[in-house]
C-alpha cells in the first residue's frame, strides 16, 4: 500500500476510536466500573468498524481514579471493578485497527458532581482543569515545534522540558512520550532519549504524555496520532 493508503486506514481507525470514545464518555457515571467502561468502549470499537485490536489483543485500557497514575505494558494490564466516584478521572487508551492499520487514541474523562466532562472550560476543580490544560498545551507545543528532520530524542527532550515547566512529571513506565505507528508493535520506535532517527523516518507517530502533578492523586493522558503533511506541517489524523 502507498503511504497515502496507509494513512487513510490509520485515519479510519482513528475515527473509529474517536466515535467510540465520544459515545462512552457521555455514558460514564458514578458507580460504573472500570470493567464496564472497557466492555462498552470495546464493543463500540467493533460496532464502528475495528476488525482487530492491535495492542496485545486489548481494545481499550481503562484506569479509574487513583489507578490513572499507573503505567505499564498493556501485556500486564488487568482491568478491575473499581467504580467511578462523583468527582473522579477516567483514562481511556484505545487500540482499534482497520486491516491491521492502527488507531491509537487516549483521552481523560473528568467527573464533577457525577457529570462527565471532556472540555477544560467546563471544569471547576482546579486540579482537573490544570491537568487537561497542560495536556492541551503540550500538544499545541508539539504542533508548533515538530519538524520532519527533528529526531525522536530531540522531541523527547524539548517536550520533557515543556512538561516540567508546566509543573508536571512524566508517568510513563518507560519514560517515553509516544511512538511510531507500525504494522507490527515490535517495530515501534519511541519518543525517548535513545531514538536518534528523524520523525520523518515513520509515516505517522503518536504523542501521548501521561502526566501528573508531583504530589497529585490523578494521572492525565491525551493521545493523538500525527503525520507530516504538505510543507512539513504536522497534521492530526
Amino acid at each position, binding site marked *: 500500500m502507498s503511504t497515502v493508503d496507509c494513512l487513510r486506514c490509520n485515519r479510519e481507525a482513528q475515527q473509529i476510536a474517536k466515535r467510540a470514545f465520544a459515545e462512552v464518555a457521555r455514558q460514564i457515571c458514578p458507580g460504573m466500573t472500570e470493567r464496564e467502561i*472497557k*466492555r462498552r468502549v*470495546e*464493543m463500540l470499537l*467493533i*460496532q464502528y468498524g475495528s*476488525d*482487530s*485490536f*492491535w*495492542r*496485545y*489483543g*486489548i*481494545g481499550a485500557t481503562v484506569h479509574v481514579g487513583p489507578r490513572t497514575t499507573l503505567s505499564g505494558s498493556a501485556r500486564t494490564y*488487568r*482491568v478491575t471493578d473499581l467504580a467511578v466516584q462523583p468527582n473522579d478521572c477516567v483514562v481511556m487508551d484505545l487500540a482499534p*485497527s482497520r*486491516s*491491521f492499520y492502527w488507531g491509537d487514541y487516549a483521552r481523560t474523562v473528568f467527573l464533577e458532581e457525577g457529570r462527565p466532562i471532556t472540555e477544560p472550560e467546563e471544569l471547576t476543580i482546579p486540579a482537573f482543569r490544570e491537568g487537561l490544560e497542560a495536556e492541551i498545551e503540550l500538544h499545541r507545543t508539539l504542533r508548533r515545534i515538530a519538524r520532519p528532520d527533528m529526531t525522536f530524542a530531540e522531541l523527547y527532550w524539548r517536550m520533557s522540558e515543556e512538561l516540567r515547566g508546566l509543573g508536571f512529571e512524566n508517568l510513563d513506565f518507560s519514560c517515553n512520550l509516544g511512538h511510531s505507528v507500525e504494522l507490527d508493535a515490535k517495530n515501534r520506535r519511541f519518543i525517548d532519549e535513545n531514538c536518534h532517527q528523524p520523525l520523518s523516518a515513520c509515516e505517522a507517530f503518536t504523542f501521548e504524555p501521561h502526566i501528573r502533578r508531583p504530589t497529585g492523586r490523578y494521572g492525565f493522558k491525551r493521545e493523538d496520532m500525527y503525520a507530516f503533511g504538505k510543507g512539513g506541517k504536522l497534521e492530526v489524523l
Partner: protein
Amino acid sequence: MNIQQLKCYTEAQNIARRTMEDLEQYVASGMTEDQIKRQAEILLIQNGSTSFWYHGVGALVHVGERTLVSQGGREYRSGDTRVQETDVITVDLAPTLGTCWGDFARTIFVEDGRVVRELSELQTSAYKAAIEAEFKLHSFLLEVARPEMTFEELYFSANALIDGLGCKNLDYSGNLGHSINVLQQDRIYIEKGNTTPLKDAECECFTFEPHICKQGGAFGVKRENIYYFVDGRLKEM
C-alpha cells in the same frame, strides 16, 4: 497445570462456548460474514473476554465456499459473502481471560434459512457426512492420545484417519492443532517433525481442530476443542 490455572482456562473456554450458543441464535440467512464476525466479537466481550489472543482478532468467520479457505490471522479479512438459505459457516473463537486462552471452533449449518442446532436433524447428506467425520476424529483422539504420544505421532495417525474417511486436511500449514500458551508465538503444533510429547505442552493442554472437507467437496468444516490429561486419559475442557 494447577487448579487455579485449570479454572481460568476452563472459564475462558466457557466464554467461547456461551458465545457460540448465543451466535447460533443470532445467525440467519442473508447475514454477511463481516456482520457475523462483529456479532461474535461483541458477544465474546459481553460474555467476559478481556482480550483477543489471536492477532487481536476475536472471531474468524468463513461463509459458504470460503469455509474451504485456510489462512493465518494476519491475512484474514472478513468479507461480504452472505449466508444462503442452505449454507455452512465456520466460526473460530479466540477469547482471553487474563492470560488464559479459550480456543473453540464450530461449524454452523443453515437449512431453510435457519440454523440447525441439533446436528442429528440435518437434512443435507453432505453436511451430515462432513460433521460426522469431525466427530469421528475427535472420538479417535480421545481413544488414542496418551501423555507420552508425540505431537507428530498424533499428526500422522489423525491424518491417516482423515484420508480413510475420504476427507482432506485443509489447514494452510497442514497442522491439526496447537499447544495453549501465554504468548501466541510460543505455540507448538500437531505437525510433522514435532517430537514433543503431548503432556509436555507448555500449559499442559492443546487444541485439536481438524479443518477438513470431503474429497472434492464444496465446503469445509471445523470443530475445535481444548484437551488436557487427567490420570493419563484425555479430557475435553
